[in-house]
């Protein structure tokens, strides 16, 4: 009995072996025989006026069919100054000498190879004309979000043409642009006055001339009377206890709500550090009505949520740098007009 089973098993095994050994013809699949393209969005986070939306647009055709001639990007809303299309195609370096420049670079470095003339932007359209004979390239496009795009959506059409007359295009978007406004690296000097409504820093004389605009007073005090005051943002309308040594100009008395926050480090304001983005909805929804009129002891990388006395603006302020020696604080601010 055992022998019979053994034979059957052997027979089955042989059947499988012969079945598996049948030769099948294999042909290398034919590559694409025309101009093709692809695109990805490289930048992350909410779209804020003044910030960039970055893309990488790739195009290629078989070498025997010709070369790339030109690339064109058309945005539905003309980009702000600084919008451009790279005329270099980038690759990731393996380390060692870079053939195109002769310099030594570490592995992983982003190396650009010039393939076209610098881009020309005319209204909504940005173009690059190829100057090198190349059949494949990936060009980066940086769209600086203009003021006119605030609260709207923007779309992009990327297109490429080849020397054989073929052309392709790729649509990206729509992308919603927030209503948030942003200003980075504002330097506050000791005892200066800051306005959320116009992002301006005023001295005492200027503050006296614009009392309604003054939302905050910036102070730096070394430890005194047993307390650590440090760097502080104080509403002019706060208890005078929190404005030591400050004589406010006549009429400067706004009561601005401030909530200290060390956890919401916005990537836009912190210059590409951290993975948090403050968006329109954050500023719309936050309730600051029970918050105090001051925030003392601000440090590097801390922040504060702010609401102006008239309730017109809410803002998130990020502290880029405090300088104890100079008595200054560099801040970046995102604000939203509450309608």
């Amino acid at each position: 009995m055992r022998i019979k089973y053994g034979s059957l098993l052997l027979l089955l095994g042989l059947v499988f072996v012969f079945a598996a050994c049948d030769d099948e013809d294999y042909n290398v699949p034919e590559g694409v025989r025309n101009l093709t393209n692809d695109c990805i969005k490289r930048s992350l986070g909410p779209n804020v006026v003044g910030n960039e939306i970055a893309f990488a647009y790739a195009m290629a055709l078989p070498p025997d069919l010709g070369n790339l001639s030109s690339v064109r990007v058309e945005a539905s809303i003309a980009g702000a100054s600084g919008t451009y299309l790279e005329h270099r195609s980038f690759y990731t370096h393996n380390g060692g000498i870079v053939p195109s420049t002769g310099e030594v670079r570490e592995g992983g470095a982003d190396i650009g190879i010039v393939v076209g003339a610098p881009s020309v932007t005319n209204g909504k359209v940005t173009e690059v004309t190829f100057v090198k004979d190349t059949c494949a390239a990936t060009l980066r496009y940086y769209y600086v979000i203009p003021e006119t795009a605030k609260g709207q959506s923007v779309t992009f059409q990327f297109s490429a043409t080849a020397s054989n007359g073929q052309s392709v295009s790729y649509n990206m978007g729509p992308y919603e642009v927030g209503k948030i406004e942003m200003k980075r690296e504002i330097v506050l000097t000791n005892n200066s006055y800051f306005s959320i409504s116009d992002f301006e820093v005023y001295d005492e004389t200027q503050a006296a001339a614009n009392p309604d605009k003054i939302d905050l007073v910036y102070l730096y005090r070394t430890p005194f009377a047993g307390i650590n005051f440090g760097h502080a943002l104080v509403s002019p309308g706060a208890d005078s206890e929190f404005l030591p040594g400050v004589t406010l100009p006549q009429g400067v008395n706004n009561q601005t709500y401030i909530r200290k926050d060390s956890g919401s480090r916005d990537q836009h304001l912190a210059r590409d550090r951290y993975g948090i983005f403050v968006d329109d909805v954050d500023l719309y929804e936050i309730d600051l009505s029970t918050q105090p009129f001051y925030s003392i002891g601000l440090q590097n990388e801390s922040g504060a949520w702010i609401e102006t006395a008239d309730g017109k603006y809410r803002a998130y302020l990020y502290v880029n740098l405090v300088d104890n020696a100079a008595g200054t604080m560099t801040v970046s601010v995102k604000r939203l007009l509450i309608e």
Partner: protein
Amino acid sequence: MKTNYRYMKNFIFTLIISFVAVSLIRCTEYPIDEDGLLITGRADCYISNFELLGSDHQIVRSGAAAIDTTELTVDVLVLYGTDLKNLYPQFTLAQDAKLDPKVVGKVDFSDLDNPKQYTVVSGNRKVRKTYTVNVSVQQKQ
């Protein structure tokens, strides 16, 4: 065949008895309270540590909190300028104990004349001790 049947009968009987015994032990020894927490045999009822965080979730106390388990008080001094309306208290309790009321968000400690009170309930839920949290703000010297 008869022997097999008897073994099977005994086996099922033992299984049922074991199941009932386990169920009874489970129901009597480890009851659950209204919050879904285990009621244990522990009668310990005290606060072992107290922390106070500001709106930015950073510690605002100046020095360690003084916990008096006889007087049932927690005295804590907070830094100058601390906003007492928006604080997040954190209690560390005796093992298996729980707090009433629960801390579910920011707490307003600004009414210094009527300090907040929290009751610690022991693990066996039979001992309750109400602590008073006295917050004071560091003043200029």
